[in-house]
């Protein structure tokens, strides 16, 4: 067995996942904020932040889609060992991870149903850099407005119009992470 696969998980899962979840929850509750997370050492091209997010939120009950370069043997093996999430096509995914370019148009993901809008995918978008340099965000969780370096504007504007259906996003870069729920209105730049 490939011993590298065994590495890179949480050393103290109950505590580390509690801390990571608090960060993720805070970010989805306060779009535009950026926090650092750590504890996982996933194989490339997964960032630390994306690895932490997957270990914290995913398990055998959450079908996962790997986009483009993220669908590689190293990542698949690491996920099989540490998380156990079944790897599925995008339409069946509860979670998905990859670069914005690799995702392409995000129209095929589950956006929930009118009776169960929660049955929608959460996309973990890996970015080169993550900063507050970007378009203005308004909506629940935001006192007046915040800003975030989004990879796109129109997609997120279109997503918000689907409310209460829609996708929810987490942006990761290195150890940094930010969130953008479907409720956030992104202003044109």
């Amino acid at each position, binding site marked *: 067995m490939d011993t590298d696969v065994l590495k890179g998980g949480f050393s103290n899962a109950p505590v580390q996942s509690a801390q990571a979840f608090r960060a993720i929850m805070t970010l989805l509750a306060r779009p535009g904020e950026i926090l650092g997370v750590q504890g996982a050492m996933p194989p490339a091209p997964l960032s630390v932040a994306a690895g932490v997010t997957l270990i*914290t939120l995913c398990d055998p009950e959450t079908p996962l889609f790997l986009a483009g370069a993220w669908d590689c043997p190293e990542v698949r093996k690491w996920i099989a060992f540490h998380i156990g999430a079944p790897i599925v096509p995008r339409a069946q995914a509860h979670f998905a991870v990859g670069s914005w370019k690799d995702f392409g148009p995000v129209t095929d993901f589950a956006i929930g149903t009118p009776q169960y809008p929660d049955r929608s995918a959460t996309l973990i978008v890996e970015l080169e850099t993550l900063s507050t340099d970007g378009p203005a965000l308004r909506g629940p969780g935001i006192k007046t407005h915040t800003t975030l370096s989004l990879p796109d504007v129109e997609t997120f504007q279109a997503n918000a119009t689907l409310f209460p259906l829609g996708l929810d996003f987490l942006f990761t870069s290195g150890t940094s992470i930010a969130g953008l729920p479907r409720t956030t209105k992104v202003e044109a730049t």
Partner: protein
Amino acid sequence: MTHLYTTPEAEMNAYNFAYLDEQTKRMIRRAILKGLAIPGYQVPFASREMPMPYGWGTGGVQVSAAVLMPEDTLKVIDQGADDTTNAVSIRKFFEKTAGIATTEQTTKASVIQTRHRIPEAALSEGQILVYQVPIPEPLRFLEPSEVETRKMHSLEEYGLMHVKLYEDISRHGAIATAYAYPVKVEERYVMDPSPIPKFDNPKMEMAAIQLFGAGREQRIYAIPPYTQVVSLDFDDFPFEASKADHACDLCGADDSYLDEVIMDDKGTRMFVCSDTDYCAARRHAGHVGAQGIPEKESVI
């Protein structure tokens, strides 16, 4: 049958941090995130049987257990008070299973679990308020079927609720709902605020994260900070956050929700803050109510 002969201490240590196993916590955490992304929508979750009965706050306890970190400071209140028996019992549960610090001071807590009240002191951005919810469905008393109420939420069909409130007005001249007064969140979902007195409704537009757990009914919902929460009303009968028309007899506060305490068999009444920490802090700062005595002279 070795499991019959372990000690209580060994049993408790055998449980995970904050009692729940990691897989259960992940399931609850995912529900919380969807709840925050769809404010006011009730997310179904596979609630577990907890070591306290349904109705005692199993939903709130599961949400708190999924949210707590070792560095948290927890406050638990029931009816606004830290010393009520169920608040004491839940606080002890988390002291034992999560080993976290606890406090009675609203300002010092990072997580506050509550039953039936929102603290008087405004909560800040770093804080989380976890509500225990008995019946999460605001339409349940108008329509007992879950199949029907789910349909009504999906169609944003809230006419039944407005008819009920309007009938109240035509019959009583006022909306006859004093607690668990329904709200509309971000102009979309009608939500049950849990059985808080309607006095507390306006506080729901706050800086802290609000999470709601209904264990028996298997629902979690949430309100992110700075989210619009409007109590349902009519232009000619606007919502009114009422309370007893008195000041606290101990600390003199005229802006806090009051409990009415019967003092003797002649029916003598006294009004005191329901939020015990708020009252104590005011007395500590030197405020004295009509029947109170300065803190330094009283024996506590």
